[in-house]
């Protein structure tokens, strides 16, 4: 559904943000896009939805070139940006103006999500708190039922119960022909939702693996002392001993600690990535 080949992109000619980036994504999955601040996550999402244009290479999304901005393409793609701007109108007028751009927009669904987030539907947008606005926009994004849904830090600004609500809603809406990319720093909020991990570093996607592949190749465990495990790739001090990542030789079925995995990939890049490249 998304096919990116050798994409180059930069805000200035001499300074590339994304370089020779290739990425192929299929529908029916929730991709977690992880990367350090300024790694280019938002730039990549903007290239996918046609808000920014690649300087070279090709980008195909839902069979179309986003840079052409064909209306039929734009109807199927929705980007929920990290910073949101909302006009000073009621929720209902916002809907009247923006929902018609999306033929698959479902009003009933939108109001159901608002209800689940506890947002009164008569409210004016400017009178709401940041978190409330964000919830309105999350509800709108999901109600478009867009085939490609891009969410940039969606849980930023949400309180704890809303994060739970967000997870429930996402778990319930994902369709087989739909692709969701969530870019996030707050991995712990979302790691049970993400089934494919993408890591953007050094101007390209350095890792693209389903969660089950990661836990197939690596074991995540807690040990009292580092002597207990022979080949530690990465370790972090924990309350009781250490949290470690080791090659999964004994075929253990451990749970992926996505945050630690991300830290490990950045700090022990060669060794971590080689686990996935060897057969």
């Amino acid at each position: 559904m998304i096919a990116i080949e050798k994409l180059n992109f930069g805000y200035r000619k001499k300074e590339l943000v994304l370089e020779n980036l290739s990425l192929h994504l299929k529908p029916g999955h929730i991709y977690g896009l992880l990367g350090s601040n300024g790694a280019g996550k938002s730039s990549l999402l903007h290239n996918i939805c046609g808000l920014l244009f690649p300087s070279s290479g090709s980008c195909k999304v839902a069979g179309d070139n986003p840079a052409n901005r064909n209306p039929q393409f734009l109807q199927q793609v929705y980007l929920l940006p990290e910073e949101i701007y909302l006009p000073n109108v009621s929720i209902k007028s916002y809907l009247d103006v923006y929902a018609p751009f999306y033929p698959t927009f479902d009003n009933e669904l939108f109001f159901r999500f608002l209800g689940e987030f506890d947002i009164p539907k008569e409210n004016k947008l400017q009178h709401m708190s940041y978190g409330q606005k964000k919830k309105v926009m999350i509800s709108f994004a999901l109600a478009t039922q867009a085939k490609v849904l891009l969410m940039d830090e969606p849980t930023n600004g949400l309180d704890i119960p809303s994060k739970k609500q967000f997870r429930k809603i996402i778990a319930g809406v994902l369709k087989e022909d739909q692709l969701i990319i969530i870019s996030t720093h707050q991995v712990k909020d979302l790691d049970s939702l993400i089934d494919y991990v993408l890591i953007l570093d050094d101007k390209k996607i350095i890792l693209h693996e389903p969660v089950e592949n990661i836990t197939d190749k690596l074991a995540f465990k807690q040990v009292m002392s580092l002597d207990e495990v022979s080949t530690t790739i990465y370790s972090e001090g924990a309350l009781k001993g250490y949290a470690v990542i080791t090659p999964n030789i004994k075929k253990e079925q451990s749970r992926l600690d996505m945050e630690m995995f991300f830290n490990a990939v950045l700090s022990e890049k060669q060794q971590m990535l080689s686990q996935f490249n060897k057969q």
Partner: protein
Amino acid sequence: MDFNNTQAIYLQIADYVCDKIQLKVWKEDEKIPSVRELAVMLEVNPNTVMRSYEYLQNQEIIYTKRGMGYFVQANAAAGILKARRTQFISEDLPQLYKKMQLLNIAVTDLQTGYEQFINQKN
């Protein structure tokens, strides 16, 4: 549901389903929640629940009727009990033995404690 940090989520979900079956909350030959319903309930990716259900199907704990969903296999509860007993004996007990040895606790010390525990419950 709170997942623990050690075991793969799909196995923890499978365990959750087994609990429900063993406790007869979900009865034999009855329909269990759909993949999506359970995903929403547990706040996880539906593909993860799908993997749990495939795993449980392979273990002959649940079965699928085309277009109708997933059902509890007849005798599933007995099978789960048997599997869990085996697991307790092969995995949990050795841990306990190790600690008993370390703390110098005799098997006979356990017996009185266990009997008291059973009596308290009744």
